[in-house]
């Protein structure tokens, strides 16, 4: 029994590490992403906002530029058509139009946050009546930077991908190769086989996560501020949840296209909406309420809370329980309809 379990785990790990592409996608890729995104958002220089200026009045662009006397803005004298085109292309967010009488109006998309910001900044600069300047303090301490937001998200994403591709795709592929039915046609217990899959994934995701964390720690100084046992608990629960989901996904698919499509149909939306790369709080309320209960969201939010807010083990008990239930239900449902032969 134990011998079989052990051999299955060892074989799966060997099969995994001998495939160089898999190593690339599961280890180098997340490190690359965190490196690139982390750096991109850390060295955020004061960016120069480009604004199109539509006016037929001689010299007024220069006048405004002088009035602003700011390195924050760059004015481009354009026709209105050009300005609209630039907005469409995303080159600028806003343009200013001055009518012959010299009054200006701002033109921008009101739901575009970046455009709003530009508008407010321009307004502030142009109507500078030296209202008393209140001091601003930059927050760049550990736990508040974008990289601190990103790393826990990537860890959660890693667990999901590792389980869904590692278990789900592996099982579908074994079914396509008829390996699954060949293995099940021995005295090997199905439960041993699935347990081996799960333990393998726990070990693999743990290593992947550790490597990513060590990188983020050394390179960006990302820290785990909260409970380590809590982190382990949510990590194990998350793995269990996605292992169950993976088994459900893989329960019927019999060819590569269906399998691939099915996995992508689950993985892609979760990756996008679950607050891995950016917060989901900007979504409309009803979506936000939905997203909050997705397994990847729960996992990412709680890893993040432990990393950045110093959350304790008690605060992750309930979410862990929820993830375990998710894993259990999908696992049982998957087994019910599983196509072994």
């Amino acid at each position, binding site marked *: 029994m134990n011998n079989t379990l052990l051999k299955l785990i060892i074989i799966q790990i060997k099969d995994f590490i001998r495939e160089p592409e898999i190593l690339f996608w599961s280890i180098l890729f997340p490190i690359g992403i965190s490196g690139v995104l982390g750096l991109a958002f850390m060295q955020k220089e004061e960016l120069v906002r480009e604004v199109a200026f539509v006016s037929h009045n001689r010299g007024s662009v220069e006048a405004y530029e002088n009035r602003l006397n700011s390195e924050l803005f760059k004015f481009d004298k354009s026709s209105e058509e050009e300005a609209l085109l630039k907005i469409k292309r995303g080159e600028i967010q806003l343009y200013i139009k001055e009518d012959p009488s010299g009054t200006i109006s701002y033109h921008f998309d009101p739901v575009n946050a970046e455009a709003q910001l530009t508008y407010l900044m321009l307004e502030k600069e142009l109507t500078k009546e030296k209202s008393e300047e209140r001091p601003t303090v930059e927050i760049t301490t550990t736990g508040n930077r974008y990289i601190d937001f990103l790393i826990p998200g990537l860890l959660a994403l890693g667990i999901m991908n590792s389980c869904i591709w590692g278990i789900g795709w592996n099982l579908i592929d074994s079914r396509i190769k008829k390996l699954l039915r060949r293995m099940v046609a021995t*005295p090997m217990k199905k439960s041993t086989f699935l347990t081996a899959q799960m333990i393998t994934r726990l070990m693999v995701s743990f290593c992947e996560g550790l490597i990513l964390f060590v990188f983020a720690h050394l390179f960006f100084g990302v820290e785990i501020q909260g409970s380590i046992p809590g982190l382990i608990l949510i990590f194990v629960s998350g793995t269990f949840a996605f292992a169950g989901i993976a088994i459900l996904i893989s329960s019927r698919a019999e060819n590569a296209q269906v399998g691939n499509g099915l996995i992508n149909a689950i993985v892609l939306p979760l990756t996008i909406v679950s607050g891995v790369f950016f917060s989901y709080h900007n979504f409309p309320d009803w979506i936000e309420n939905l997203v909050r209960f997705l397994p990847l969201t729960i996992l990412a939010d709680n890893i993040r809370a432990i990393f950045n807010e110093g959350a304790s083990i008690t605060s992750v008990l309930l979410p862990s329980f929820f993830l375990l239930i998710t894993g259990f239900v999908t696992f049982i449902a998957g087994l019910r309809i599983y196509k072994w032969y």
Partner: protein
Amino acid sequence: MIEITGVTKSFKSLIAVNDLSLEIRKGEYVALLGPNGAGKTTLVEMIEGLQFPDKGQIIIDGKSWKKHSSFLRRKIGISLQETKFMDKVTVEETIDLFASFYKLPSTRIQEILDLVNLNEKRKSFVSKLSGGQRQRLALGIALINNPAILILDEPTTGLDPNARREIWKILQKLKKEHGTTLLLTTHYMEEAEELCDRIIIMFEGKIMAEGTLESLLKLYSKGEIIEFKTEKPIEVPVEQLKGVINIKQNSSQTEVSMEVENITEVLPSLINLLKMREIPLLDLECRRKTLDDLFVAMTGRRLNE
């Protein structure tokens, strides 16, 4: 050893196996011969306990799959059609993994490697094996638990004659040394002829004929075959030669296939006749009737279609 009674299995509208009964005795080598789609694989997979009959029953060594599946799993060894093992795992590791499923010690690896002659490839990844080596690995895994009953689904399909012969050698050795019971499916009649005591011809879910090769050929059709091609139309009444049972020729009368009682009697008079009429021969083939001829006569299809 294996008793099958009144087994039926259908998929949607297709009846794959139709009220089929069959008995296989201990130590017997049986070939299940038939074209693709005859229902061989479905039948074999029901015997292997991988599919279940809609009707009828299958008893192996006095036990049924429903009640004694774990006993039967240990009793039989199987090789499925086109199984692929994990690519980046070596031959040795693959055998070791399967040995652990049967709780066998690691010493079994060496025995299997010797048995299927894969010693040199023990450290190779499965992905680097040739077709023949892969099939031998699959056979080795089928033999891992020293099964009393071996069931092989098309063990040599797609292999070249040498690789095929190697598999036959292993199976013949098993018969001699272990008295294994074997059921194999194939669409190569040489394979059935070479290996098996009994041949079962399956077509459209039913057994069409069974017996030893000799008895099948005798029972279902007599005679031998002479086939020849000529440069110009023969225009001679070859069918009137003594000993000719049946004759087929193409419309231009340049290709003839004769079914005769005895080649040695008919051939000299045929040659004489052609010589007298000065008709040059392009091609001449004399042979015993084969299962394929028999099969074509019964169904109008060839075995390996």
